[in-house]
């Protein structure tokens, strides 16, 4: 939460501590890489080069980041009202369903500039709808949102399997996938946008959704800190009782916050379904919803922090893939371990380094006072 301690300056809180945590995670990862018999420096170099060394690498990094921005914003939004939305995975999955329903129904009739807003609305509506039941149960029945959102992830997975196997599957096909959308309904790739400007970059799944993610981040920032609703939401987050006393309808705030949170997670479906896969398929969310939790924690629930954390995690995913590509002893499980360590240090152990950073600052400020 946004607990700012008076003992350390704000820049240290939002920048220094996350960087220290990141380095601790990398140090432990380096030890593990050394133990399996590879050179940690070489591995780190491969990861960084893989993530940022080519326009293709950057494309993949930002493509992953797009998903994490959406799911990270979803978690952060709920967190400002002290709600822990673990259902980003299911909401993104169903959001993708919303996109696919719209595009499958209308891609033969409408131009892209009408399809795009419709697809965005579809994703947000479906994602919000998937968050609505847990939100209602939390607000009016007191069922804990952590439990209900987790359970809704499983319901989403089963629903999607049912729909893909029985409804969307092409007749005679063995793969549970919908038909491919008409090309007009594909989100333009960054590559094609650059090509119209005369700049050639290599092929990657990065698409216009990234720009949409940045715009949405701005809107979320305005909503949280510069609107009445955002103020109400944060009040509920700081103290539900005080908010009630101040005349805020806390139940309504919980509902609205969760609906927005679900809508944000649902937008990840736009990137995947409209931007990359161009068809509805199984398991396209692949854990991005859960990664959003770590992204929000690391980004301190602030859109700017979330964008930075998303790019870091995007780099981890892309760089990790490159790493296991070039170092055969680093299996995909090893990459999971490295990703897990970073999540552990920057999420669960985020405050571990804080006490001694504070101490250093206290000693430091005493010394400067003596000197003065």
């Amino acid at each position, binding site marked *: 939460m946004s607990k700012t301690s008076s003992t350390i300056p704000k820049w240290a809180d939002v920048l220094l501590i996350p960087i220290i945590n990141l380095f601790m995670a990398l140090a432990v990862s380096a030890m593990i890489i050394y133990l399996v018999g590879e050179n940690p420096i070489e591995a780190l170099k491969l990861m960084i080069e893989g993530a940022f060394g080519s326009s293709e690498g950057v494309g993949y990094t930002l493509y992953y980041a797009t998903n994490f921005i959406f799911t990270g914003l979803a978690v952060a939004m709920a967190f400002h009202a002290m709600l822990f939305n673990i259902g980003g995975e299911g909401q993104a999955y169903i959001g993708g369903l919303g996109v696919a329903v719209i595009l499958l129904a209308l891609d033969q009739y409408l131009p892209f500039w009408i399809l795009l807003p419709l697809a965005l609305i579809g994703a947000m509506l479906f994602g919000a709808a998937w968050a609505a039941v847990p939100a209602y149960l939390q607000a009016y029945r007191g069922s804990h949102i952590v439990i209900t959102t987790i359970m809704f992830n499983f319901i989403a997975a089963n629903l999607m399997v049912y729909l893909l196997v029985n409804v969307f599957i092409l007749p005679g096909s063995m793969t549970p996938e919908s038909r491919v959308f008409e090309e007009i309904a594909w989100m333009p790739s960054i590559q094609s946008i650059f090509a119209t400007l005369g700049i050639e970059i290599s092929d990657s799944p990065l698409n216009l959704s990234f720009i949409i993610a940045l715009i949405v981040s701005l809107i979320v920032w305005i909503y949280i800190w510069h609107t009445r609703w955002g103020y109400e939401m944060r009040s509920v987050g700081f103290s539900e009782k005080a908010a009630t006393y101040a005349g805020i309808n806390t139940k309504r705030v919980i509902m609205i916050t969760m609906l927005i949170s679900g809508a944000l997670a649902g937008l990840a479906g736009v990137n995947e379904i409209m931007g990359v896969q161009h068809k509805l398929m199984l398991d396209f969310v692949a854990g991005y919803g859960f990664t959003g939790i770590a992204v929000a924690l690391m980004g301190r629930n602030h859109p700017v922090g979330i964008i930075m954390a998303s790019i870091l995690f995007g780099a981890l995913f892309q760089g990790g893939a490159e790493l296991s590509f070039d170092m055969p002893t680093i299996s*995909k499980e090893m990459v999971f371990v490295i990703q897990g360590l970073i999540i552990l240090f920057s999420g669960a152990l985020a405050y571990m380094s804080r006490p001694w950073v504070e101490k250093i600052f206290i000693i430091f400020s005493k010394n400067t006072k003596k000197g003065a």
Partner: protein
Amino acid sequence: MKVWKTGVILAVAVAALSAGEFKPAVVFDMGGKFDKSFNEGVYNGVERFKKETGINYKSFEITNPTQREQAIKKMAKRGANPVLGIGFAQGPAIDKIAGKFPNTQFGIIDMVVNKPNVQSIVFKEHEGSFLVGMLAAMASKTHKVGFIGGMDIPLIRKFKCGYEQGVKYADPKAEVIQNMTGSTPSAWNDPSKGGELAKGQFDRGVDVVFAAAGGTGIGVYQAAKDAGKLAIGVDSNQNYLQPGTMLTSMVKRVDIAAYNLFKSAKNGSFKPGIQALGLKENGVDWALDKYNKDLITEDMKKAVEQAKADIISGKIKVHDYMSDNSCKY
């Protein structure tokens, strides 16, 4: 002497050069290379190639759908040749990348991709199923045999249709009782439901059951053991799982397919197009080993081997469900 020496050096150098140039690659699908099933079969095949030739291969295990195309493209870009993709889900990615790298040889298992540089490997599961169907009918005392499928998809109906034909061929009076485990991918990994379905079939008089259901089969084999009935395994040789009650297994040699693809590419005899592996190509077969030799009588063995020879020669025609999406024969 000197000439001889140069000759040796030259030969070694040529061998080293060609070994260095041949860079096969395989992209495993989600589930990974140790999935005890399909991917692992391929893994065993390429490992055998590595052991026999000393040529290392590049491999990648994808963790999300977007990586399919990324990994295949990267393999091709880095000069890997041939590049082998596993499973029907990689079909679209192979199709796309094969078009961009016309000089690279690609392979795909369980899917057909029509590109001049792609070898598509599919299996004639109906032929192998026919043989185990015959064995089931001959081993049955009640003239009732069972079939338990995984997910209800055309591929599994192909297994079932071949099995049914084999049963009827050996014993026209026999009855086949069939169940599908479910309509979702979880049907591949539901041993408890598999066990329940098997028990239900045993109650209806079935005494031999064939499970074409992935991990669900484990429950079927256990139920057969508990009830003292016979079961038939699938994909890999599963006879060892329940020695004594495993009648046989219908083996699908994805390992041989992967091995052969690498080998043919190395020899320069890589052929694009569809490779349909049946009994003739040893792509499918029935398994006989020390675990089930007491269950297979000489007569059964003779009859099955005869049928196998007849299928290979074309005397017996096994109908393929997928040729017309129906099981009329």
